[in-house]
Structure formats: C-alpha cells, structure tokens
C-alpha cells in the first residue's frame, strides 16, 4: 500500500513539473499560434539563473528573480525577433525559436560550463515532508517530517515496519504547480487583462480599434510563458539536476504533453502531464513482458520465441518510451488531443 501511495506521489509530482513546463508552451501557442521550440531552453536558463542568483541572495529570492529574468528575456526576444518574422507566417516563427534554442544552449555552456552544477535546495526543503509508516500490526500512519529511527524498526522480528519518507522538494514542486495552475486560470478568466488577452486572440483588429496595444499584449504573453518555464527551471533544477542537457530531455516530452492534451488547451495540458507522469512512474514498477503474459494466459511459447529479446522486454524497460507511444496513438485516434477543440 505504501508503495502505491509513494509511487502515486512520485508520479504526480513529476507530472506537475511537466505541467509547469507545458503550461507556458500551451499558453503561448493558444494566444499567439507560435509553437515555441525554445521553451525547454527557457526552462534550462531558469535553472541556471536560479542557481547563480541563489549563490548571491539565497534560494527564496532566486525563486522570484529567475522567472522575472527569464520572462524579460522572453519578452525581449518577442520584441526584437519574433515580431519581425510574424508577418512571414508560422514556419519562419517556428524556425526562429528553433534557432534560439541552439543559441541559448551554447550561451549557457559558455557561461556556466558543460558539466552539471550542484544546485542544492534550501535547508528547509532537504528533509522529508512526511513519512509513511507501514506497521504490519498497527497499520498505515502518516507522520510530518522525519520519523525517528526507533519508529522505523521493530524490536520484534516478526513485525515488519517500513518507513517511506516523501522528499519535501517534491511536495514543494506540487504545491507551486497547483498555485500556478490556479493563478493562471484566474488571471485568464476572471480579470480584465485576461479578457483583453482572450479577445486579442480571436479579434485582434477589434481589440486594437478599442484602443488596446495588441503587440504589447503578445509580448506580455510570450514573456509570461517564458517566466513560467523559468520558474519550473528553478524548481526542477534544484530537485533533479542542473546541466546543459536538461532542456533536451524535457523538450521532447513537453511537446508530447501539449499534443496529447490538445494544442492550446490549459486543462488538457494539465490532464496530459499528470497522466504521463503517473504512467511513466508506474510502468517502472511492473515487470510484465509478452512472455510473462503468455505464460499467465497459458499460451506455450517455443524455445526460439521465449529466448527472443523482444518477447522478454519488460514494461519497466520500455517505460521511457511510453509517452512517445502514447503520442503516436493519440495522433492516430484523436488528433485534436484529449481536451482539444480544433481538429488536427
């Protein structure tokens, strides 16, 4: 049972990190129609800026400074590059962000080097948030913080006690993602700015003639999307690793999230990232393969078939490619995505 809970929490926290990343991407796409290839690079820049800022002013101010810096960079990029190519259509827009991702990667390597940095979360987040204690007699209980060692071991050998701490960094990650989801949703649907943004999306000329600065709105949206990626970067970088390859490893997966959830749908991105996080985490736990399934169903396999490496491949081994398999299936059977509104 505690295995299920911990795995579920691991999956949810990973899924929520993916959401933090993909929300910015999907926001930019739905508002501006730009598929931002450099989005994961903003995530990486966020982690590095966060690292440097935390060296000087500490982690908590860095958590605010890094998204602001990355957001400003994003807005600047929109102002001086993206806006210029906007009139040439979507392909040049896509290519300019694609180029930016390479430039950012090289710049980061020039400034911070090619090796992984030691980005430690603050003291308060280093321990466990809570500990699940599974006692074979007393049942399951939850304890905030670290469980004392004597509670995790039983004097009697027949009693089995398992303590499963849940790291505070992951709890914090989940909290931030949920707060972010709430505030972005509120901003878009309940405020004046949100109304203007939504109107600028569908009727830019009307909005412009009402006296609103539409290019300014687009710049703010792009900056805000980048800032969200920067925030995810500070949290992801300190929880996992801060290194130049971090953009490449999440870059492909957030596109999966956005496509699976439905292009431009915030709730779709939320659903898809949770789904992918949980699927990927749980897939690691299962050792089922075609061979073990066949054995369970009583289908006899020939000696040749049972020594085939493809047949022996377990679910846990293919866990890393499952999201991409999921992407292909969605594109075949539901091209508009889980919660998307427009056709492929």
């Amino acid at each position, binding site marked *: 049972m505690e295995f299920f809970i911990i795995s579920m929490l691991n999956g949810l926290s990973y899924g929520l990190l993916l959401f933090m990343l993909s929300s910015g991407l999907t926001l930019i796409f739905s508002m501006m129609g730009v598929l931002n290839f450099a989005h994961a690079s903003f995530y990486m820049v966020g982690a590095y800026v966060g690292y440097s800022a935390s060296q000087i002013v500490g982690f908590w101010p860095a958590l605010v400074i890094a998204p602001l810096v990355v957001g400003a960079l994003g807005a600047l990029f929109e102002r001086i590059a993206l806006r210029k190519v906007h009139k040439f259509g979507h392909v040049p827009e896509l290519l300019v962000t694609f180029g930016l991702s390479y430039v950012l990667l090289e710049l980061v390597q020039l400034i911070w080097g090619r090796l992984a940095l030691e980005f430690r979360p603050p003291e308060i987040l280093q321990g466990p948030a809570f500990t699940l204690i599974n006692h074979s007699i007393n049942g399951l209980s939850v304890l905030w913080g670290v469980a004392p060692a004597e509670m995790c071991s039983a004097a009697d050998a027949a009693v089995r006690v398992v303590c499963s701490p849940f790291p505070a960094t*992951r709890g914090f990650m989940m909290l931030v993602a949920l707060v972010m989801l709430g505030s972005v949703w509120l901003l878009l649907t309940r405020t004046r700015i949100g109304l203007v943004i939504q109107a600028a999306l569908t009727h830019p000329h009307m909005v412009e003639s009402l006296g609103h600065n539409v290019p300014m709105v687009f710049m703010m949206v792009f900056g805000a999307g980048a800032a969200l990626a920067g925030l995810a970067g500070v949290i992801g970088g300190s929880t996992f690793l801060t290194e130049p390859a971090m953009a490449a490893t999440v870059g492909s997966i957030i596109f999966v999230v956005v496509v699976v959830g439905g292009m431009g749908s915030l709730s779709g991105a939320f659903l898809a990232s949770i789904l992918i996080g949980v699927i990927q985490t749980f897939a690691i736990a299962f050792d089922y393969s075609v061979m073990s399934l066949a054995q369970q169903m009583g289908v006899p396999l020939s000696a040749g078939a049972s020594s085939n490496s493809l047949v022996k491949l377990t679910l846990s081994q293919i866990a890393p490619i499952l999201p991409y398999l999921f992407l292909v299936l969605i594109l075949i059977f539901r091209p508009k995505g889980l919660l998307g509104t427009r056709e492929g």
Partner: protein
Amino acid sequence: MKFAVQLVAAAAVLACAQGAFAQQGQTVKMVRIDAQTGLLGPVGVNQLKSYQFFAEKFSGAGNPAGVKFEVTGIDNKLSPTESLNALKAAIDGGARYILQGNGSSVALALSDAVTKHNERNPGKEVLYLNDSAVDPDLTNSKCSYWHFRFDADTSMKMEAMSSFMETQKDIKKVYILGQNYSHGVQVAKFAKETLGRKRPDIQIVGEDLHPLAQVRDFAPYIAKIKASGADTVITGNWGSDLSLLVKAANEGGYTGKFFTYYTGVTGTPSALGTNGTGRVYQIAYNHYNMGGQMDKWMTEFKAKYNDDFYTGSIIRIYQTLGAAMAKAKSTDPVKVAAALEGIKVSSFNGEVEMRKTDHQLQQPLYMTVWQKADKKYPYSPENTGMTLAPLKEYPNYVSSTPTSCQMKRPS
C-alpha cells in the same frame, strides 16, 4: 645528390651507434577518447586530468625507456559513433596510442575499429589501452590483439564480490539494478552466476535495467526496490547514474546495503555524504587508502586540481608501457604490443601481469566500505569526512578468471 647520399649514410651510422636507446627522448603521443561533456562528463574530465598529471610524473627519467608521454583528449560524448570519428582524427593527428575507459559500448566499437585499421594500414598500427571498460567480452569472445585492459573485468570483480558476500550471512534478498548497455547486462549476468555458485540460498528478488545516463529521477526505482523487500542492491552504475541512485535511496529512506563498482568516483561521495555508513561497498583494484607513494600522489593531485584521483589503472598504463618500450627498445606499437604480452611490472600494490592469452591485467582486488575517515584510513574523497576503508584484499589467484579468447596474432 652526392651530398644526400652522404647524409643518409651518416644518419644510418648515427642510428646504429644509438642502437639500444633508439626510443630514448622520443615523444609518445597519446589521445584519450572519452566523454568530457554531458551527465557522465565529470568522470572523463577527472581522468583526463589524471592522465596529464601522471604523464609529467612518468616522462623522461620516470620510465625505464626514457620516453616523453603526451596526452590530449577528444570528447566523444559517450557515443560509439562519435568515438570512431575521434579515432580517425587522433590517427590523422599522429597518435599511435589510443586511451579510453568509460562505456563498454564505446570500448567494443573502438577495439573493433582499431583492429580493422591495423589490418588495413600495415606500418601505421595503433594500440588501444583500455583503462576502465569492464565488459568481459573485450577479453573473451571479442578479444583483439591490439586491445589491452588495465582495469579488472566484471567476471573478476564479481568473483571477488561474491566471495565477500559469501561471508555476509545477513544478505538474503538481492536486487540487481544496472544501466541498459553491455556493461549493465554483464554485471547482472555474472552477479547471478557467481552468487548461484557461492550462495545458492540468496534470492534474487528483482532485476532492472534503466537507460544509460538518461534517468534524472530514481525515486520510482527505489520505491520498487523497497517493495521487493531486498536487503541488498548490486549495481554496476557509475557517474550520475550512481550518485542520483544513492541520492534517491537516501531521500526514499532505503536502508539496505549497496554493492557497487564505483562508489569512489566523482559525484557519488558527495551524494552519499554521511549517509550509508557501513552499508555501501565497493569492489575495485585500488582504493583511497593504498598508502606509500600513492598517498603522496593523491595529496599532490588534490592540491593541484582540487579533485580526487581514483583511476589507478592510469599509473599502471604508464608503468607497463614504459617497461614494454624499454624491452622493445622502440616506441613502435607493433614491437610494443609484442613486448606488452605477458609483461610483469611492479606497481603500487605489488606485481601485476598482462596476461598473454587475452591481454587482461591480472591484479589484486579490494573490497572496501563507506565509513567515517579516521587516523588509519584518513583520505576523504570530495571532502565528505568519509572514506572507503579496505575490508579484504583478494589476491590475483582469487580474482583471476578463465578466458575463451582465441586471439588472431599478426604473423
């Protein structure tokens, strides 16, 4: 024309006069093809520094042949394909000695490429000196005359590790976790084989392979290991794949033992910190508290680079190469290869031998455990205040394993 003939004659006389010491003062250009970027980059960078540090120590009067060693590095990003390009660049640059260690996948590709190159380019042969890749295939089914391994292969390490586990009666359930490439697969294979032979009562409760240098989050694996009820994990993981694993184990509250190959390697000591005292073991051909000259070198290395020296095979490469060049009276790889076969050298922990049949260095192995550094075992990697204290030494006759190598020797 006449002058030219005279010059050639004079040169010939000079060469004859020098005779026995033709190699003296020559520069031996060596290129290390290894990862210097990416997740596993820190290990490659540390080893390149180690090579350059010891090139200074062993050049000139430091070796019996009196040659000068010169090492440069090419980044292969841990990719076999990039390594083959790097090999070509190295050979074009005039290097006749290729060094590599990290990634048996790379090692297999390089060994194959070097063998083919030497077949096709007689007179331009290169030698491949392998400092760390431990896939047994390299000295068995895929052995090559041009490849020499200075680390101990997985069959040797597992032989020693299982001999130690034989004495640890509290080990009952074992989980094997590895990187999904030749090395991880071999570790799992030999772990099961040797444990089945020496401790048939041990239950293997789980086995997993994960992608090499891709996993950032080992928490799901730790949850799975805990759920399996394993009291011991055997892993051949190295670099970030080991440091992130032990980090996740600490965070996830896993309290079982870890039997590893590379606890002392960059990143893992910091990730372990004071956790894992008495629970994390390492099997290797050297350790941080060898004493004697090794201590002085390690202290000097640390003072110079603020990093720890752990790849002892580098020292042995210089020692055996120097001895072989003196024996061959040449730096020509063909002659040196012949001299390397079966050579015996006195190294930092006694005599080691480059076995002729498969080019596997025969050497003692050490089982060490992670614990607080004290007076007896003072060296503390990455300033953790902890050290790897030796528990048992396995001499050559224990660690030595048979080989199936049928090497094609140049006629």
